């Protein structure tokens, strides 16, 4: 909180925006599926932080935070986890196929 001229919400907002930027860059420009998956996770992390900022700024009535965005983030994290698990499974299967064919199909 002492990081003037930012208050905590602005700082986290900027951090979230940076993560979104890095993630978008990675997901668009990388070739490898693994890197794109990691970029997707960064992007997701950035969005979740932004939800936290929204919760902080939107809190009224003396609450320290708005609970609704927090509930949304928890759901979002579960969904992102499932997506990552599904993508990892596919990447593993693909890698196994590539190994089986002695690498003559390397992409």
């Amino acid at each position, binding site marked *: 909180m002492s990081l003037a001229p930012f208050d905590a919400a602005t700082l986290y907002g900027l951090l979230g925006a940076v993560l979104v930027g890095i993630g978008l860059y990675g997901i668009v420009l990388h070739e490898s599926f693994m890197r794109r998956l990691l970029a997707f996770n960064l992007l997701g992390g950035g969005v979740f932080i932004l939800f936290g*900022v929204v919760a902080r700024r939107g809190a009224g009535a003396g609450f320290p935070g708005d609970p609704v965005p927090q509930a949304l983030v928890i759901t979002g994290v579960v969904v992102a986890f499932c*997506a990552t698990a599904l*993508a990892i499974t596919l990447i593993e299967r693909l890698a196994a196929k590539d190994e089986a064919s002695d690498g003559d199909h390397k992409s």
Partner: protein
Amino acid sequence: MTAALMATTPGGLLLVLAVVVPVIGILALWLVRSRDIERVAIATLTVNLAISLATLQAVRASDAPLVYLVGGWLPPLGLALRVDGIAAVMTAMTGAIVAVTALYARGQFGFDPQGPEQRRPMVFWTMLLAITGALNLIFAGEDLFNLYVALELLTFAAVPLVSLDRSRDTLAAALRYLVFALAGSVLYLLGVAVIYGAYGTLDLVVLSEMRGADGALLLAIGLMTPGLIAKTALFPLHLWLPPAHAGAPAAASAILSALVVKGSFFLILRLWFDLLPPGLGTIGANGLGVLGAGAVIVGSVLALRQARLKLLVAYSTVAQIGYLFLVFPLATGSEAASPFASLAWTGGVLQLLAHAFAKAAMFMAAGLVYEAIGNDRIDGFRGLGRLAPVTVLTMTLAGLSLMGLPPSGGFSAKWLMLSAALGEGAWWWAVVILAGGLLAAGYVFRILVPAFSAPDTPAERQHPVALTRELAALSLAVIAILIGFLPLSPWPLLAIGRLIQVSP
């Protein structure tokens, strides 16, 4: 006004059933013996079809949307399910196509006592039910975050269908599809965060009442639209679609091409017409129209150049999705009292319906052709008409609708869009529609001409095909034709329950 729009209506329970029944079906699949999986899945989908038709009938009869408040909580605290005229039509379309696809897929993924592989039927039927439930939730959902979860369910159910045969190519196609879809849904989620931050609610009805010319809303829609476009495979974000849809087994391709891409399109439609204030969206709507026009031309030209039937049909999906996006400039630019009473609105919905039925029939026919001659290379189609007359008839009828020759659903859709474009003096959209129709005629005749010509050597059928499966495909093609006999004017049904645009 909110209170009047927001109370559980009689028949609201149907919406809950539409979401819950497929999920119960999935759970039941795990409880029964593997040889009964098919029967349970088909029974579930039959019940789902009955529910969706009852929903449509209830909306028509009451001339008002069906609403169900989950747990009795009013938005913005609670979640509402709400089905208006267009959503009811979409639900019924989904119910019908999924049920017929299930009949077609019977036996393809069926129980095989000799085969060691027992997982494929389980995966296929689970995912088919999951797609049904997710689509029903997308059509009935009212809360933007709820819709996000439904979109993700749809993606997670669709991706495994692409790589059912586990070859290297389909795994790569599934991964590429997943990456596009995930990037799209994160962008959508970012837009949800912005909207919640600005308005403190995610309920579409509540939001539509407080909308204004607001930077936050524009930013949110500017983020969500590209995300949803990536999921819908609108040009130029269509690259994942052809390998994914062409690599999947025929029954799965039919569902992916006919229904799954329509889910995210429906959300774009809701965002643009329910949330954006009138007049504000004109530039954006024209932008979407330009992308749609690009899709029509590029998709059709690429379809003309394909050597394999399934890839040709997949590229034709890219082109036909393009037509859907012409609705945005045409409906916002119309002189009608509201965009929902315009010719273009009905034309767009007809295009969506006709394409769904015709494309599902086309992919099923492609699968049957593959079984009949052992491959789907178009230069090997000579004499197909004698080998598989019902299948070729299916392709002909579905092709008529894709080209837009009368009488067919595709003709009605394109005719309404053409009239809308000429009525508004926007001749450039008319040129695109006509050019797309000519190109579509090109690729459809590329299939049909060899199929109807006499073979050089009498070919033999490789594989016997059950007549029920051929008839399943044919019935969808016939429905695509029958849609063309509906009256050529705006349907009042499609305007039921739309949130009327109030000028600020």
